[in-house]
């Protein structure tokens, strides 16, 4: 066929052959994923497996162009595969509505492919795919974008750094006291309000809304929520009042403020808060919002105290009705930033708190971004980065790894005339947790306080990115990923199960085909609330002391995924 011949001449016969027979795995069908899929199709790739656990949302449509309005709510992986098939019916493409971290996507599964593209938006999935590609010895093309900026790189075991060779930036952490007692910025109020929502209607022990630091251990109490300092029995109390909004507001924005005011030391060098009299702000008539600026969305108007009180009343009643109407053993409302009552509630509560503390109020548009961790996104950034990704794939298939590189997409302003900046790939870090020949690390904990469950969730899953680890100390099995060993009491401290300073723990994740040795050392007190330190074993230990992604962050990612998977909105076709 003439067309194929033309393509062969342009790419060269060998490369053309490789492109058309190459088996590609694409993880993620969002902004970058849609663009990658389109590029693969137009470049001549014919064999694609696509995994994405999400469904289509309206806000995706400004850039995830494989989806249309009538597909909102459907599985992204399946919808994207359908659209690509319609571009070219000769393409073999499977779209799987699933989490790449499922056990069915084991090393054997990965080994079926020639190239893997990561088109993800979260750290824990990136780490997992990195592990799997290392185990299967596959080239991985990693990429990410935010706003106008983007970057892409190539990872190949033994040749280049893997994703975990260098520490990744840890998201912002807030001191607990700031949220509880001395907020000074709108974000502090939003975090508090989000937590309030969890306590009243959602998952009550949900600390995942916040990344905390400093002295949190000391502030923990059995009766009070760590972040809001409200009683853990708040929901019971609210139920007993039938969620009377005025009584609740009075407690939160008047009584509790009075209590804070009585702690003089807090206010010696700070402007003290003023309690709000919410009863006085009861609206007698509905006022129409005043737009400061004609170029404003309705969501961009800032509510007065009156309006906040009104919105608080209406949203809390709506949420109460919904919560009371839950059936099928469900006892909690699932947080959804696109849920208008939930956003109304959080905006009203955050602003009331802001008003009390003399902090400028924010509009719903801004608060939604803070509460929902929204990242602004456009089509062009993803288009450019995805183009580079597929060019890298062509290099890999030609065997030209020396042409592969890291590429940064910058803006006019920060670039000195260089918009796309290539950088040479770097050899692997010999002390990397993930790709070193024999990964080792030193773990500092208080053996009398740290439990097996802490080890599992904070260290192995939270910091080391494992999913289902087994831990042995010599012949003794401490933790198991298998059901038969459910007899292991994870609440026991390490000391109680026989771990001593100098003990060697052998950790293995069967799914990721990943092993690491942990050397244990005793330490009594720690800088932050995590209660541990993790160091890779090397001479320059200062450099390598863990700036690992915070265990809270990874745990939150995993919890969000679990929420998505098991929420009411998860639809299997």
């Amino acid at each position, binding site marked *: 066929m003439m*067309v194929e011949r033309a393509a062969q001449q342009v*790419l060269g016969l060998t490369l053309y052959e490789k492109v058309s027979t190459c088996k590609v795995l694409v993880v993620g069908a969002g902004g970058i994923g849609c663009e990658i899929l389109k590029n693969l199709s137009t470049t001549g790739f014919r064999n694609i497996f696509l995994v994405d656990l999400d469904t289509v949302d309206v*806000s995706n449509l400004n850039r995830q162009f494989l989806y249309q309005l009538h597909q909102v709510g459907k599985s992204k992986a399946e919808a994207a595969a359908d659209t690509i098939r319609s*571009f070219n019916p000769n393409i073999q493409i499977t779209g799987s509505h699933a989490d790449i971290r499922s056990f069915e996507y084991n090393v054997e599964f990965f080994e079926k492919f020639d190239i893997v593209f990561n088109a993800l938006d979260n750290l824990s999935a990136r780490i997992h795919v990195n592990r799997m590609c290392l185990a299967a010895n596959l080239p991985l093309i990693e990429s990410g974008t935010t*706003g106008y900026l983007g970057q892409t790189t190539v990872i190949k075991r033994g040749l280049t750094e893997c994703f975990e060779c260098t520490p990744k930036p840890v998201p912002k952490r807030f001191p607990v006291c700031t949220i509880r007692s001395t907020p000074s*910025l709108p974000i502090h109020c939003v975090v508090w309000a989000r937590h309030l929502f969890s306590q009243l209607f959602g998952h009550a022990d949900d600390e995942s809304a916040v990344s905390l630091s400093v002295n949190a251990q000391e502030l923990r109490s059995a009766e009070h929520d760590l972040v809001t300092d409200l009683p853990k029995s708040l929901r019971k109390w609210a139920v007993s009042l039938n969620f009377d909004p005025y009584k609740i507001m009075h407690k939160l924005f008047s009584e509790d403020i009075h209590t804070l005011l009585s702690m003089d030391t807090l206010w010696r060098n700070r402007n003290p808060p003023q309690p709000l009299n919410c009863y006085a702000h009861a609206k007698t008539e509905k006022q129409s919002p005043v737009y400061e600026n004609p*170029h404003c969305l309705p969501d961009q108007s800032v509510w007065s105290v009156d309006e906040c009180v009104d919105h608080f009343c209406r949203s809390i009643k709506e949420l109460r009705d919904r919560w009371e109407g839950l059936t099928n053993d469900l006892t909690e409302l699932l947080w959804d930033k696109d849920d208008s009552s939930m956003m109304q509630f959080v905006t009203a509560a955050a602003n009331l708190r802001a008003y009390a503390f003399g902090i400028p109020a924010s509009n719903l548009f801004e608060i939604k971004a803070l509460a929902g961790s929204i990242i602004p996104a456009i089509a062009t950034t993803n288009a450019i980065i995805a*183009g580079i990704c597929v*060019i890298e794939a062509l290099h890999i298939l030609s065997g030209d790894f020396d042409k592969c590189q890291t590429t940064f997409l910058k803006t006019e302003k920060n670039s000195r005339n260089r*918009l796309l900046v290539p950088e040479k790939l770097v050899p692997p870090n010999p002390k990397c947790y993930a790709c070193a020949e024999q990964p080792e690390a030193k773990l500092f904990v208080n053996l009398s306080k740290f439990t097996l469950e802490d080890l599992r969730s904070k260290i192995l899953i939270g910091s080391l990115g494992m999913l289902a680890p087994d831990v042995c100390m010599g012949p003794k099995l401490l933790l198991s990923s298998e059901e038969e060993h459910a007899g292991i009491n994870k609440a026991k401290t390490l000391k109680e199960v026989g771990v001593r300073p100098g003990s060697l723990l052998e950790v293995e994740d069967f799914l990721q085909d990943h092993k690491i040795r942990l050397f244990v050392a005793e330490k009594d007190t720690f800088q932050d609330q995590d209660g541990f330190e993790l160091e890779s074993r090397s001479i320059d230990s200062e450099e390598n002391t863990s700036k690992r992604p915070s265990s809270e962050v990874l745990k939150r990612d995993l919890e969000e995924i679990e929420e998505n998977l098991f929420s009411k909105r998860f639809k299997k076709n």
Partner: protein
Amino acid sequence: MTEKQLSTDEAELYDRQIRLWGIESQERLRAADVLLIGVRGLGSEIAKNIILAGINSLTILDDGEVTQEDLRQNFLLQEKIPLGNKIAEEVLPRAQALNPLVKLTGDTEPVAAKTSDYFKKFTMVVATRIKFDAIIKIDNYCREHNVKFLYGDIFGFFGFAVSDLQEHDYFEDRVQLQSGQKRGHDGEKKTIKVEAKMTFPPLNKVLILPNTKQDINAIKKMSRPNNLFVALLVLLEFRRQHDRDPAAAKMSEDVDTLKSISSQIVELYNFSNIQMDDLYELFFGDISPVCAVLGGVMAQEVIKAVSHKEPPINNIFLFDPVSYSGKELTVGP
């Protein structure tokens, strides 16, 4: 064009981009009427990106017919389109599905048939695949009517774009730290809008080819002549002389032709130290992912130009076929 307030549907659809460039930019986009010339590999990428961005209308001008190559590569074409149909019409259904809010028109007339008045009604003109004479002619028409103009092309792994935004006013968002705060401090940051202005030279003073009536005195001595800029001129001259682009089927004779054109250009501009031997073979064919990269860059230039937000490229963008770097070059008197 009056800028109405965005509807709730628009606010929901464009939420993620409004959070980046602001609602005024979105309103200006919504008032823009753009002409796109050429809807093949590069053109279809540009079309996709600016349709998604939410302009008011896009007119696609392309007198070509659908070929086998198009069916294989162009994601805006449906599968079972008869070869020989007009491409400007056949891309419309898929293009419309990208964003039902944008008004789309296909125009199957040749570019050469269009006179100055045709260009008057557009906010911006984006051109691909046109010959040198058409580039200069359309730039002149655009200048007559204060219409922004952007031209770009792909030759194999090499891509470039050239802008003429004439007198361009724009706003920049600058982050200002409160006085007394250090960088990176957790305090309030204020974003302020700064006004700025840029002037662009006309393209007949930027792209100068041998044996034309152009003013060779406009060629300013370039302190560091750029291989890729020479390549750009060489390829335009090839197209002008041979009425086609370098073709893979004739690679070896076309490379020879390119080399000889290159010596002419180097002489005309009085360049030295131009090393292009490794590059010639990279100029053949239509490499899709390169279309995607340049299509993204050009579409972002359109968005910046019509929304008058953020500094545009002034005035040439060059995508390096060897290093995949993307650089801005300023050329002109």
